[in-house]
């Protein structure tokens, strides 16, 4: 009999305590950030899609030597690059670097394995497109455009 009333008392008190907590949270500021009207700063170490680092000291403005190590080591087979030999230039010249971002898992293997440190992650997190081809990024065009 005593547990009957004890249960009513403790139960009722726990309900009131719970309601007080939600009431207190009601008057605290909102945690949500109203994206896209407000944006949060992104950490510089965030892994967006890979880019070729722009290096103004090199004649080709990037450090890639078309060794194809990134293409070989990629677990998802999303890199497609080609280089050619040109007259009077030592080594291969990169003519195509396509990253299929729909398959990329952002593991970082290509960034680490590159012998010339040509690749890095960007901070790009807003990827919008209407078709799959919108996410086939052309990294060579991106690094050449960066000058402007």
């Amino acid at each position, binding site marked *: 009999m005593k547990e009957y009333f004890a249960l009513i008392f403790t139960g009722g008190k726990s309900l009131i305590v719970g309601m007080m907590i*939600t009431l207190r949270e009601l008057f605290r500021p909102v945690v*949500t950030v109203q994206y896209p009207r407000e944006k949060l700063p992104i950490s510089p170490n965030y892994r967006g899609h890979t880019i070729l680092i722009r290096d103004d000291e090199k004649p080709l403005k990037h450090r890639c030597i078309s060794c194809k190590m990134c293409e070989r080591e990629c677990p998802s087979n999303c890199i497609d690059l080609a280089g050619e030999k040109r007259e009077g230039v030592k080594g291969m010249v990169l003519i195509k670097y396509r990253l299929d971002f729909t398959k990329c898992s952002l593991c970082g293997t290509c960034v680490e394995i590159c012998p010339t440190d040509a690749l890095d992650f960007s901070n790009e997190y807003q990827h919008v497109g209407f078709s799959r081809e919108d996410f086939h990024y052309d990294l060579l065009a991106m690094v050449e455009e960066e000058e402007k």
Partner: protein
Amino acid sequence: MSAVMNTGFLPPELLRIIFAVVCAIVIVFGNAVVMGYLERKLAGRFQRRPGPMEVGFHGILQLAVDGVKLVGKQLIVPKQTDKVLYRLAPIISFAPAIMPLVVIPFSPKLQGRDFDVGLIFILAVVAINVLAILIAGWSSNNKYSLLGAMRSVAQNVAYEIPMLLTLLSVILVTGTFSLRGIVEAQSGGAWFIFLMPVAFLIFFAATLAETNRAPFDLPEAESELTAGFMTEFSGMGFSLFFMAEYTYMFIACSLTVILFLGGWSGPPLPYGEYTSALWFFAKVYALLLTMIWIRWTFPRVRFDQLLNFCWKYLVPFSLVHLLVTAVVLKL
């Protein structure tokens, strides 16, 4: 009033009733809009998020846009349902929701019609909701809906008992079933909540269960039964159930205010005979906000624990309360 309304070819009393019914319909839709918006905004704020913000200033037009969307949806009738019952269920749920509003006294002069048995009329009409839920669950040809409907019937029927017993305690004091009479018996600040706080709590808990609101919202348990008896309804059918639920909440809270919180009584206002409806609405909305607050704080009660709570806790207390009231009145 009768001098204004004497048109010569319609009796003024009939015009008055038609006007009251139209006002009741306006209150139903207005309440659904306001309550829907308040519920979503407050749900957001309790969870530290903003709630609707896009449509209109701070999302005020959200319910209007939702209404347009729901009306424009395709009415899908699943293949093996009972066609007549499936279409009837939302109507049976929604139509009786308007009738009690004609009887409720919002202020001394604002009442559609004052029955001598107004209280019993409201209770009888609200009980039709149980039938509508059962029809909805059965005609959907879906095991989830049927489970939800069965739970709802048992829950509603069980919680009628403590509700009626606490009502009886109030009626013993006032001696009349007429709603206006009950409010006038509490005039001057002698609200029944101060006389019988236990009855108020029992009645409030019983109304939470009658309107299928959390923590007693098993018939619509989202995480177990994916919307319970309303699973198969889309578009207008769903929105009729939704509006009916909010209207029953309004009616239940109005009953609580009339019985325990003194109806329209409050500090005097100019044109007091009509504007004391403001005090009525303020009290009703305070209770509705408390219902929303309770919903967003607690988890759901399991079904057999719900019936346990009713039969082992609420019914004994309300019986004892009735006995004590009768004894005290006799002395």
